[in-house]
């Protein structure tokens, strides 16, 4: 087994655990490189068909290429797509810094979705290497009904025994890609020929390394115009992945505040 085989196998194991143990399950799809891999792995785990709804938390602020890609993949992969319109920025906590406030719209959209659809489990394609608070996550991470993450009292994960039983009023975030790195995602996408939003490839010296809403995400300097070039770039870069994400960098704990109140 190669290291990619091992990562794939572990993620498939987690997806199957979630599907078996959690009654009402959905996956978040941001249409970015990670959640594309997540859905691809679900097709592997369940032999071709993603057996749960796939949710886009839509702020209306995605780039046009993202919407185009979404519609193409939804059709080609036969996804059961649910589009959740997020509430406007004017309804967000005014004490948050501006970009963080814009990002909080997705948290609120998710809460609305959970209230309405009563999902017990939400799968999310986050990775530990993306951001320091994500490095603290569990594979199965319980949340209060309001989405709050109690990072000081997380369940024990002994070997592969995840927490899959919950009291009324809680739900669980499942993170099948937690252990992957950015480089793994690209190497795997290349190996499996997974379709990619073209915004990740450099045009005129810039590319998106992390894809988010157009008002709070910015392309970074890069000349990597193919997956191979991206892989070569990542092997040497010392620029953090989320450098182009405004909300991470506004205040010392902006992202921590977002995450403990329910952000992905």
């Amino acid at each position, binding site marked *: 087994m190669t290291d990619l085989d091992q990562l794939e196998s572990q993620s498939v194991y987690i997806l199957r655990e979630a599907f078996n143990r959690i009654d009402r399950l959905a996956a978040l799809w941001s249409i970015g490189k990670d959640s594309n891999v997540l859905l691809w792995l679900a097709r592997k785990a369940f032999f071709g068909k993603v057996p749960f709804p796939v949710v886009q938390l839509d702020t209306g602020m995605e780039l046009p290429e993202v919407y185009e890609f979404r519609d193409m993949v939804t059709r080609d992969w036969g996804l059961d797509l649910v589009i959740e319109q997020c509430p406007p920025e004017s309804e967000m906590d005014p004490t948050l810094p501006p970009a963080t406030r814009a990002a909080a719209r997705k948290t609120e959209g998710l809460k609305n979705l959970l209230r309405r659809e009563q999902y017990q489990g939400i799968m999310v394609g986050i990775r530990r290497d993306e951001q*320091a608070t994500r490095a603290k996550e569990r594979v199965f991470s319980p949340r209060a009904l309001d989405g709050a993450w109690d990072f000081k009292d997380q369940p024990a994960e002994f*070997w592969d*025994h995840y927490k899959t039983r919950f009291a009324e009023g809680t739900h669980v975030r499942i993170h099948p890609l937690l252990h992957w*790195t950015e480089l793994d995602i690209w190497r795997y996408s290349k190996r499996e020929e997974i379709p990619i939003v073209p915004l990740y490839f450099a045009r005129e010296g810039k590319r998106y390394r992390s894809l988010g809403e157009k008002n709070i995400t910015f392309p970074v300097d890069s000349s990597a115009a193919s997956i191979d070039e991206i892989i070569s770039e990542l092997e040497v870069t010392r620029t953090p992945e989320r450098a182009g994400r405004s909300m991470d960098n506004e205040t010392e704990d902006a992202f921590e505040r977002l995450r403990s109140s329910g952000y992905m």
Partner: protein
Amino acid sequence: MSPLLPASQRRQARIVIVGHVDHGKSTLIGRLLNDTGSLPDGKVEAVREMSRRRGMPFEWSFVMDALQAERDQGITIDTTQIHFKTERRPYVIIDAPGHTEFLKNMVTGASNADAALLVIDAGEGALEQSRRHAYLLHLLGVKQVAVIVNKMDMVDFSQARFDHVAAEIRAYLNGIGVAPGVILPISARHGDNIASRSENLSWYDGPTVIEALDGFLPAAPEDELPLRLPIQDVYKPDERRILAGRIETGRLRVGDTLHFAPNNRTAKVVSIEAWNAASAISAAAGQSVGITLDQRIFVERGHIASLPAERPIEAHRLTVRLFWLASKPLETGRAYTLKLATAEHRVTVEKIVEVVDIDDLGVSAADRVGRNEIANVVLHSRSLVAVDLAIDLPRTGRGVLLDGHDVVGGFIVTGADAVAERNLQRVEHAVSPDERALSNGHRGAVLWLTGLSGAGKSTLAMGLERTLFERGRQVYVLDGDGVRQGLNGDLGFSPADRSENIRRVAEAARLFAEAGMIVVTALISPTRQDRAKARAIGGDLFHEIHVKAELDVCEQRDPKGLYRRARAGEIPEFTGVSAPYEEPQAAELVVETGRLGIEEAVGELVGYAERVTGLKYPSDAVQGRGEGI
């Protein structure tokens, strides 16, 4: 520097860093990241700026502690994972908290590590928490351990001090069966012996921390062990019926005959299914697979597939070495859900054999296991558990206990009473008495309580029922008043009717006992003749227990006011007053309630009941197999 490994072996190594709080784990990691050039640009400057703003001296550990609360308190609360690479291969470093109260998080961080660094303060030596972490690493199956003696700068880089600390921890590790790869002196704060050799430690000629990391071997492949494929789920995407699961050990091939435990079915592998990939003819340990079989046998989540010649043990009773996480202690008689691979079983704690003292590795008897303690415990499951000993197959020889929604402990299996051949005595019933006994964890019995009115029969019966129930026994009280309201509602109190009452109760009690239950009856049953008849009905299952108190004591108690009414002549033929009570001459047990308090009396009864209904197993004498882990 070690040369780059060939690409095939350049798999990421997962290294957990453990040790007592303040012994310098996070500082070491901060240093490792910095000295290998793994920190993103601007990170050190940002942390320096943050420290300046807060008026705190710069610490390398701030690079690691991600949460506001961690920076505020200067401690690591939760486990975190950081990626970095040496010239040889990539690593993920798992920083596990040192505080006792976050031991749960330490376990989470360490349970999937390939190797560990155990960090010890040169000045303080291996404190209790360091020892506890070392023991847990061992329990979790982390076999490669390097010991880092940190803060050598605080002891003037003294070789004598290092030798002392090294000898102490080596002795401890040897005591739990761990051979540390290296023991090396460093100063994380100043960077001595992290990425490069230090002048201050010129007397030391072993590896640096980076070299020690690069010296760890990748996890050994488990393909050569016996096949274990625990079933996760069964999918029917189309006309196929696919069994899904991850191969924990061994390998399987198309055409292999598989045995499924514990439901004891076999079938042949027809295909190994895959989506968007060529279909394979074999698969091995670590792979998540889907297989189809040549027969539609009953298989579900929790079953374990193996090759017929190398099946797992099937047992009702397991001896485990347990690490307890919950604040509510584990106690004898409590019921939990046992999770092993993908199977779940309801179990009761039959016996706490001993609790392990982390400091001197001594053991002591206990009736409860507290939070963060390690103990050897016997668990009993009503359903048959397919299991391996951890010493043979760690991945199917370990599991967790759940209490309600929560994982409250983890364990490795050190002993299992195999059920050798099943269905041997399937004669009249589909289920034999032995099978019932194995399933229940005890035999059935009729405990026939006899004695004067007011002697305490009903009180003792109820106390006995409660206690046995809480200890996981199948128990039921057939109370005299109760049966007279239903089963024997047609009977009065004439001598003939009283005799018939006893006969029917004895018959009903025997049926319950044959069904595997411990039945307790509470009837005065005053005559030897009636009790002899009951004994004849109950046979070997029958135990006569005399609940004995002097007449005047009973009359004083007079719980139902019957003595007062009998003395007043309102009740004719009242036992002890106007009718005789014939004391048993050879009761199996006499409980003197005139002398004993209720709790003592119940205690005697419980002890007797457990003695006569308990199963005799080899493990009663030998406290678990497999001394090592």
